[in-house]
């Protein structure tokens, strides 16, 4: 059953080749090829419905791909549940709508997975959680419930919750889209800090300022395909494809 051996060095965090996905008959992702190096910061942008969220959700198997291969951190995503749980515990994900657990306090949100998945002793898990909450600058909210926090605070807790699993890769799915303008900055600042610490990150976002500042590579997707990718400087100043030019003119135009 061994498929063609793909030569992957330790430097590759995520390897995606010839990946295709359909929702019923609708072809959402078409022949995606992507290699993400360790420590690389990638920003994925594109019009809505272009498949960018679906792409990163495939990386931790929240969506199943039907064709092609995805190898995360040396482990291939197959139907094997053990592999899926292993990859999910190594890959952190932050969502547009935070998805904090409303019945648990901030601290409990952060310690839940380390205690049950990593089997970290409760005391140690709490120490790690406080450390991460300090990193996102809200240790004073540790004993509040998510419903008592502002949107920006909730999103930072969500980031801390992912970090508590000590992930090697972080996925950000439009994490600032549901926030009020004055809260976007606090979340972006947290992400910038994370990027400076050397985390491997894939961010789906419309924040082009953030892309310019931290991205090593910007990927533009349209109609389920990767249309263009480049380093931010060239991507923004000299876009090659017409679709990219149109998209950039629409979001930067005003």
């Amino acid at each position: 059953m061994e498929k063609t051996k793909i030569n992957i060095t330790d430097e590759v965090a995520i390897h995606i080749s010839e990946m295709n996905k359909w929702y019923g008959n609708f072809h959402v992702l078409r022949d995606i090829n992507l290699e993400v190096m360790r420590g690389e910061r990638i920003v994925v942008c594109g019009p809505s419905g272009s498949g960018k969220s679906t792409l990163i959700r495939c990386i931790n198997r929240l969506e199943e791909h039907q064709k092609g291969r995805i190898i995360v951190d040396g482990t291939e995503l197959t139907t094997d549940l053990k592999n899926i749980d292993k990859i999910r515990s190594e890959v952190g994900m932050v969502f547009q709508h935070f998805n904090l657990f409303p019945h648990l306090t901030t601290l409990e949100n952060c310690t839940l997975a380390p205690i049950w998945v990593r089997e970290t002793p409760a005391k140690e898990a709490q120490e790690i959680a406080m450390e991460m909450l300090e990193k996102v600058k809200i240790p004073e909210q540790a004993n509040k419930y998510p419903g008592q926090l502002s949107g920006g605070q909730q999103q930072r807790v969500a980031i801390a919750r992912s970090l508590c699993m000590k992930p090697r890769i972080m996925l950000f799915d439009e994490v600032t889209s549901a926030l009020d303008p004055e809260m976007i900055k606090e979340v972006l600042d947290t992400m910038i800090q994370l990027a400076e610490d050397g985390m491997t990150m894939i961010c789906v976002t419309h924040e082009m300022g953030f892309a310019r500042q931290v991205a090593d590579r910007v990927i533009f997707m349209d109609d389920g395909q990767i249309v263009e990718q480049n380093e931010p400087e060239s991507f923004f100043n000299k876009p090659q494809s017409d679709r990219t030019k149109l998209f950039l003119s629409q979001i930067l135009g005003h």
Partner: protein
Amino acid sequence: MSKLAFVQKNKIPPSPAPISEVGVIGWLKQNLFSSWFNTLLTLLSIYFLFIILKDFIPWAWGGHWDTKSLRECLDLNPDVACFSVLTARWKQLLFGLYPAEEYWRPTVTFILLIFSIIPILFPKFFRFFWFSIIYPGLAIWLLWGGSIWSVGIVYIGFFLGVLLFILLLRNITKNMVIAGISSILFVILFFIFFSNYLVKILDIIIPISLPPVESLKMGGFTLSLIVGITGIVASFPIGILLALGRQSNLPIIKMICVGFIEFIRGVPLITLLFVASVLLNYFLPPGTNFDIVLRVIIMVTLFSAAYMAEVIRGGLAGLPLGQHEASASLGLTYWQSQRLVIMPQALKISIPGIVNTFIGLFKDTTLVSIISLRDPVGLASTIRADQTWNGIYWELYVAIGLMFFVVCFGMSQYSQYLERKLKTDK
């Protein structure tokens, strides 16, 4: 300067609300007499209350408690209640045909019941949870009597099974499934081959037993509580599993759960009780004597489990998909995420519906009177068939209603307490 420009220079300090809006007068004005229509409704309601109570209160207040028969009551004063029937028959209403010299047994059972549910209802006392586990066996032994070991052996069997499971996991295999199956096999073999001998040996060494009381002797409010509480405790986990099964991606499990729920919900409880009392004997091999109370409990449990499943499914549907995704993305397994993330929230949303089902189940236990078990309602007919009390209605049913009301109102109050306690958004 433009006419639109405006700058507020003084900060307006807060001042107290007008007296007519606060305090007793304010409350009356706001809630009872806020408009002419509201005032009319208030006066009408007071009038109706008056009509009802002006007859009821003298009737109940002046009631007789110590006459020998209904005749005697009517001779004294036909316009007031004749509670003497309760004085004469209250033991029967509570204990049914249970032997009078053994009344202490159901009494002790229900006092202990209170202690056994406290650790479940109030997390503060969770360290006494061991008593809640021992209690069911203790209650069965106290109520039905016989040797303590015939109940104790079940605990011994399960204890050995759990012990084996832990030992296997510690020392021999890491695989939960293998350890689980072998411990279950062990428990089954234990019950088939060893338990009978062990019970006999234990009986000789430490003989503790109570005079046996057969199921048909159970009755009165005791029976309602036995059926109701066992049904409530058993239907809750079954309901959760059915709700999860109905949402499952595995088509066969889903089909079985949907089929079960729709079938049970589509059939009246009385039909199921008749099946339990009459038909089941045709299907079982001849000679098997399957306890009637147990049969009724099984039917009542299945019935309310189906309702419970639908109530919990409503709670599950109320959760955003993001909760599943977030717990999956953290690497929690399916059962972990159900137990730690999904169920606590889904059950919280469903508390009113769950308690509703519990209350419904508890009151439905009165239907067992139709298959001639002697629950309070069944006993009321028996008592009224007696010449001494023939013709009495109100007093009996008011008393029975009051007994059920106390328990159901308690459940309802607890559910409201729980909802307040679990409120985390403000």
